[in-house]
């Protein structure tokens, strides 16, 4: 039982859980259940980030996705839908075609990945969070600021659109 085995165990648990959660998002008949499955998915992906030594991203993932985005989804569902109906998350008429396309994409992706080899030997620095901060406020300051403006605009826009005039 070395560190690798723990990583492997954690990975497989998380991977299977994530696929199941993602499938649940798509397949569950009640939209609220889908949203809750999505919460589970987000939480697991945060775990995956921890496995990938990206603790900061993991925390951000939980804060933003679990704490904000999903809550927004839940709010939207509760404000709009007959959310208690058993078939509030139906498929549309093209679901077979959609399935074919999705499977085609998956096949293409897997085939491509199967042919590809990657260099190895990457290391995440010990002080990753500090470095991340320095990157964000250093070379990536411009996208950082643009993202700030984008968020502001999105906030104002969301308020303007959603407000009852």
């Amino acid at each position: 039982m070395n560190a690798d085995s723990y990583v492997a165990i954690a990975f497989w648990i998380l991977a299977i859980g994530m696929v199941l959660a993602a499938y649940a998002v798509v397949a569950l008949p009640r939209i609220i259940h889908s949203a809750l499955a999505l919460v589970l998915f987000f939480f697991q992906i945060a775990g995956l980030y921890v496995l990938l030594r990206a603790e900061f991203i993991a925390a951000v993932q939980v804060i933003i996705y679990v704490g904000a985005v999903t809550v927004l989804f839940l709010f939207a569902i509760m404000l709009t839908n007959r959310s208690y109906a058993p078939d509030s998350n139906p498929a549309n008429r093209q679901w077979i075609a959609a399935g074919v396309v999705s499977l085609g994409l998956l096949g293409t992706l897997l085939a491509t990945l199967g042919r590809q080899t990657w260099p190895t030997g990457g290391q995440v620095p010990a002080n990753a969070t500090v470095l991340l901060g320095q990157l964000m406020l250093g070379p990536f300051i411009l996208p950082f600021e643009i993202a700030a403006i984008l968020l502001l605009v999105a906030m104002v826009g969301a308020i303007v659109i959603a407000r009852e005039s």
Partner: protein
Amino acid sequence: MDALNAVSNFISNVLPILRDLLAGLLNNFLPGWLTEIVMSIVSISVFLAFATIVVMSLTLVERRVIAFMQNRLGPNRVGPQGVLQPVADVIKLFAKEDIIPANADPWVYRLATTVMVIPALLIYAVIPWSQNMVIANLSIGILYFVAISSVSVVGLLMAGWGSNNKFALLGAMRAAAQVISYEIPLVFSIIGVAMLAGSLSTVDIVNAQRVLWFIVLQPVAFFVFFTAATAELNRTPFDLMEAESEIVAGYHVEYSGVRFALFFLAEYLNGFAVAALATTMFFGGWLSPVETIGNWFGWNLPPLLPPYAWFFLKTYLLFFILYWLRGTLPRVRIDQLMGLAWKVLLPLALANLALTSIGLYLYRVITT
């Protein structure tokens, strides 16, 4: 002298020493991975027991303190001075019937309690009881706290929606709105501390306060943090989404028995965690004030109490402020609630952040 040091060391690190002892013992006749599993189970059990005791003590103290403030006696019949009252309460709650409303969504209804309690417990992973007594010294410590505490919103909404009850749903949505709104000033107030400490790790933050507690440097941040945290905890005076007179009892109106007890547990665990984090970030954590003040004058004073004892003392004192607020302040209106978050706390936190940045910059310019 060595013996005294040894005793002192043992007292200071009693839990890690005991854990290592047990692990060493188990390793003699179990494979390594099994030892780790057993040790994990043991640690979790100890922690859960501890958490339960803490919450029980908190409820009792709260009732007595509030009663004192309101010129009544409070529970004093079960056991000496009513110390066994919480035990009686727990037994009562566990004995009650677990009712699931007919139109409720059973899964969501059941899971809601779990989703509430587990994050409340997970928060304790980063609380540094002492230098060595921290479950996980994460590099993103306080961010972890923010992240985990935000999960409870989902639990609120699940409980409210899952009950299929108008009051529950309304209460849940109010609570969610409130929690999300207050999370923003909360995070901003934390950033000031993180900047001073130069780290997000809770242990590092405490160690950064060896000379001066951050309450001196960041009083505004503490005010914002504590106010916002009070609101996040849905405690008086911000408890209008679960106030009996307002909306029956909010999102957990339909819950009874052991599930209600779990909600209760989660709330008090969250409250204690907030007090513990406030201690960590603003009041020097496990550091002994006696030692700290002695250091200012160059005296080598003894810490008087073991580190975790200092920590608990400070945390309980901070929690006392919550009682105090509950006993003193009237409940705010919903518009005052939102106005406070967006118009007072957020600007305050931002101004504090700006001032801190400038001050830090000037400090660096001066010292280098």
